[in-house]
């Protein structure tokens, strides 16, 4: 049973930019990764789900409820970590988290206190709980954002670029936390970091220019590229020639030289070797400039 059903979601801004164009997804419990380049519409999508913006068109159902109408119902079971947020100046972490907890509906004081303390521990902010959040560093603020997203009993957690600014160990803690809670609730993770999606998400989609260009399980999608991914090391001059002729999906510098990845059914040229596709390749393959080649899931 797909808890979150999205059908035909569209939004156009007043300046004519079409942020979302007939997006349809079915998202079950568990972690769901949303990949896409800048301007793909990921943040707009997240904001609509977080009930901060209204879509022009489309049907959004969560647990069978139409969330365009039952907004307060959704908010009472929502956790949202925006990509960019600020805080009231001069309010301590403990106080601000408590404040947000009340707004989320944790009216019972002892329980609220307990959860606030627990979250501060889990995000390693407990020893800074008396400090003003406005004085936190970027990473600390990010952790605070994670903490507030988990207040109450969220059934739909939306995290937008959550690991930006976190060091590797913090990133791991975060992944542990998400995985723990993510079993029985819907967690939508929007990110640029393909590895995170690879590590954490059993389901994913790629959003490009407001449209879903890819959807499915990561390993299945990766598998579909098997045998069709080639790589070669070239010089800059050769690169320009090559890009005109064949489907280069990505380039990378290795030891100072350029390594290209190409998708083709057969070996596209001399000195190309077959390569094991990664999720990154899947992702790059869907981006525009690939000549419209779509990777079919098996």
């Amino acid at each position, binding site marked *: 049973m797909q808890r979150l059903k999205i059908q035909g979601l569209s939004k156009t801004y007043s300046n004519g930019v079409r942020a979302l164009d007939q997006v349809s997804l079915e998202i079950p419990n568990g972690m769901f990764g949303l990949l896409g380049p800048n301007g793909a519409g990921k943040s707009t999508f997240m904001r609509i789900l977080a009930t901060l913006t209204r879509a022009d068109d489309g049907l959004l159902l969560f647990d069978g409820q139409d969330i365009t109408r039952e907004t307060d119902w959704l908010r009472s079971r929502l956790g949202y970590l925006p990509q960019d947020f600020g805080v009231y100046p001069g309010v301590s972490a403990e106080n601000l988290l408590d404040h947000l907890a009340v707004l989320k509906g944790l009216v019972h004081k002892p329980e609220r206190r307990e959860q606030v303390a627990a979250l501060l521990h889990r995000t390693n902010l407990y020893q*800074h709980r008396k400090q003003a959040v406005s004085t936190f560093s970027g990473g600390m603020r990010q952790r605070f954002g994670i903490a507030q997203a988990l207040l109450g009993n969220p059934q739909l957690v939306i995290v937008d670029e959550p690991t930006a600014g976190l060091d590797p160990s913090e990133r791991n803690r975060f992944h542990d936390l998400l995985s723990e809670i993510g079993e029985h609730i819907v967690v939508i993770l929007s990110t640029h970091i393909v590895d995170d999606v690879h590590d954490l998400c059993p389901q994913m989609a790629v959003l490009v220019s407001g449209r879903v260009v890819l959807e499915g399980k990561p390993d299945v999608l990766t598998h579909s590229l098997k045998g069709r991914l080639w790589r070669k090391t070239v010089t800059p001059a050769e690169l320009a020639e090559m890009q005109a002729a064949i489907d280069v999906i990505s380039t990378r510098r290795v030891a100072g030289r350029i390594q290209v990845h190409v998708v083709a059914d057969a070996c596209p040229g001399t000195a190309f070797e077959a390569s094991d596709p990664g999720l990154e390749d899947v992702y790059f393959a869907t981006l525009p400039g690939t000549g419209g080649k779509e990777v079919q899931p098996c």
Partner: protein
Amino acid sequence: MLAAMFRFEMGYHFRQVSFCVAALLFLILGVLMPFGNFGGEEIHRNAPHVINFIICLLSLFTIFVSTLAGAAVVLRDAQHRMEPLIFSTSIGRLPYFVVRLGGLLTAVFLVMCLAAAGAATVTFIAPASQLGPFHLSYYVVPLLLFGLPGVVFCGSIVFATALLTRNIRWVYTAGVLMFIIYFTASILGNSPVMAGSIPAPGGPGWVSVLIDPFGFTAFFGETMNWPVWRRNQELFPLTPPFVANRLLWTTISLAMLALSYNRFKFRTLSEKDTASARKAVAQTAPATAYRTIRTLTNGQHYHWQAFRRVLTLEIKTLFGNPVMTTLIFALWVFFNAIELFENLSNGPYGVRSYATSGILTEQLVAVRPALLLILFYASELIHREKTTGIHPLIFSTPVSVTAFAMAKSLSLVVWIMALITVHMAVGVAVQWFSGFGQFEWGTYLSLYYYAGLPLVLYAILIIFIQTIIPNKYLGMLISALIIGIFIFGRKLGLESYLTRFATAPRLRYSDFDGFGHSSLSFTWYMRYWTLVALALAGIGTDMWAGNARGRMRTGITSARPAMVFSSVCALLAIGAGIFIQYQNGLSAHNRIGTTNAAWQAQYERKYKPLASTPQPVITDVNLQTDLFPADQYYTVKGSVRIKNKSGQPITMLCIGIDPEVELVELAPERASRVSSDETFGQRGYRTDVPLAPGAEMTIHFEIRADRSGFKTFNAEHSVAANGSYIELEKYLPHFGYRAAYEIENVEERRQNGLPVRGNIQSTDREYHFIHFQNIISTEAGQQAITVGTLVKSWVRGGRRYFHYQSKDLIPYMFALSTARYAVKTEKYKGTTFRIYHHADHRQNVPAMMQAMKDALDYGNAHFGTYPRHELTLAEIPHYPGSATAYPGLIFSQERTNFRSDPGDSTGFNFTYATAAHETAHQWWAVRVAAPSGPGYALLTESLAKYTEAMVTEKRFGKMYLRPYHVKDSQLYFAYRSATAEREIPLWQTTDQPFVHYQKGGLALFRLKEVLGETHLNRALRELVTLHGYPLQKPDPASLVDALKRGANTSQARLVDEVFKKVIVFDNDIKILNNKALPDNKRLLTLEINVRKTDETSGKPVPLKPDDAIDIAVFNLQITPNVAPPKPVYLRRHHFSKNRSVVQIVVPRNSETVMLDPFSYMLDGSDHNNIVLLK
């Protein structure tokens, strides 16, 4: 590089919405303002004076433009977190500073220049007759002299604040404070900038010119007395005080900028990153495991909790920084305290009032400056979530937007109440420090209602405006604009209180009634405006939902609760508005009436011809007056007997009734109504048989007047729960044309197309005295006072009746008052003196009693016997002047006479003098009066002033009069220069109070000094015996003739000069030599300069002096405002040259030499009439 940076800076400024709006606003103001009134019709609309005025005024408002620009632009790096990027470039400290400062100053100055450009457009808009030649210098020079320094000053304060504090709040605070400080200082310094300021005699001192950063005081002080031709042609001169002012303030501005340059933190980013900010708290408690917890988001408990949390947070933030809050409140206390202390000592002639709770509260009701702070805080409140960036976290919770909006609004209300509490405390403190022990806590607490409620309503309005305008700065600007429109609404033509937000008729306080009289209309208007505000609040809440969470795509399918609430409130508001309008227009005859210039002009045009129609005269008045204080109305039933004294038969009775009165019935005997004009209350009755000369007729009538708090307050026609006063003679039906309805003001007459008021003396020389009887009833417990003798008094049906009857004939004057009075009665030389007063107002009664006795003694001895056996004085709560006299009765105003502090240090008992003055009117006005027209006031007011001075002199000594005369002289010159018209000589004085009061008193005193008291009083006694009732009224010239009789040539010449000419002096005295003499004496050689000018024709003509002036020497230094002791030398010297040298011998211990010690010479500059011996 600097040029490119500067271009970017200017571009950034130009892109601010607030800049565009401010620029547009100043442009429009520049276009419109030349059409105002800058001193009369002949001033060109593009005269240098006008342009300078406009630029001056607008430079004051650049405070706001600078503040907004400073906040938006100067602090942009910190605000938008661009600092890391900017400061990691190679930009140097100086270029950064210079470009930013330059941008701010240029932007604001540009706005200023746009105003000047707007003013220049008048050349194309106004008709050529109103324009003079166009000179670019007329625009450029004021911009450079007034505009630029003003911009630099404001800009430097804003800039320095921004750079040094890097906090937007401080920038706003600086802006608001600048404004408040400037205006408070103007009020205190009696700056000519303030509309209500008393013209300072001698012009503003150089200190006041110096300390005004905008140069206003210099401008107004200098040009105040400029005649039309100078205003049209001359640029503002660079007088030394002015140049000093400009240099001073430019230096101060530059110093501030230098200071900020040296000390501002450049490339030292915020202390946020320093370790001190991050003290970790030890992890004491063991880690709690995270588990999810069920939330409760439906139901009242949740909404209530959320509301409480948001409210607490918002209140904490509003009061946030304890330093700022304390500073703001402290400044508020300081400036209000100063203003209160000032106002207490601002009675006439600088007399101090008691610091009563009532007087202080009445002052404290004005809290308008708080609106600026509310504006700022409201903006912060509304945009807080967006500005801090916490918006997505907050609004993804199910918190109800209504609860949110209400919590925010309520927090602002809490702040307002805190401010009112501080405000109250100021009043209490001032009262305490002034030593007045009776605290009326109820009155102080009522400030929450009278001052707090309008502020709360304004806060709601401001919140509403800033909700619908998403841009923060634009929202503030528009709010300020709208507030300005409402506050200055009257000047913009918004008359009705139903159109001016949260305003109600002025609250007047009296110890008799509290705010009683005004509070009824205040309550209703506040109900109306509260409903309007709530309706706006509903709409605002609804829009906030939209702003916070995105618009509802489909239309309004279900009625949103906020909109329903709004609609209900709007409907109720309309209901309240209708009720109020109905109350205002309840009486068919209530228009704004005689204070409405258009009505007055129409009346004159339509009914002036009546003045020449023969009309009867009233000979007998028999009334039954019933007052209903609690319901604020009264009725009069009665009859008047009229007689035809015109010598011709009368066929048409033209009867008029005042617009404030409702005519219930009017029934002349044997006449029928032929015309009726409701607008002007005029009715025409044709007599069945012409009324022959000498014949009489009775007219029965009944009137009713509703004086509820909704009517425009008229101090002469008021019925209050306690303390009613009605000048009844003005409100009974009257015959013929009422010249009192005409517009007096020359300018207003011109504007309404009326000819100059013809000023001819009435030909009617008869005193038309009447028999008078009035049975007055009022609430039991109140006492009614009116003219005549109280024959009988009884109680019936819960009401008290008073039967007053005049024993002999009296003039047609019969005002009455009723109140709960206490009375002091004394019998003296066969006359009963009574003073009716508020039970608590005992302090000044003895002085008044003494004055009445002394004045009666003097009058009886010198002018003629006072015909009655009683003289009564009654206290009334409100009155436009100080007191007024009726036959045998004086009405005296509460505030100036009863609430002035007799232990006051000015050393002159004004209360005594006033009571003496009013008693003197029993001769001069009641017993003798000139026909109405020029010179009437000479025989009433000037003679009363003279008598007052004589009585005071007898009681307190001649030197006691000095401070009083000094003030009168200064007032004479001050009012004289403020008036546009030529001064009329004393013997024909009309409509120029400074002539018949100030000059009249001083001139008669001088004549007494020269001719002698006996001579003067003989002439006055003649006036009474030859022209008092029942004989014919005197011509004012007869006083002049009487005074000349028995005088020698030079004395007669003086009499002519004093009465028939307008002569002023400018004298001074210097010490040339001071030689010690044996036997403890000194020989002083004095130089006395006498400049005598004849201004009768309007153009000053120097005259050769031929006058005697006193010289006095004292053996100590003289304190101004205090009566000097007896002089050690006092002699009158005669001067016949402009410069004279005089030698006098005085005692060794002499210290001060004074010319004209009694200050009756009408000397325009009296500061140089005193010299100190070293």
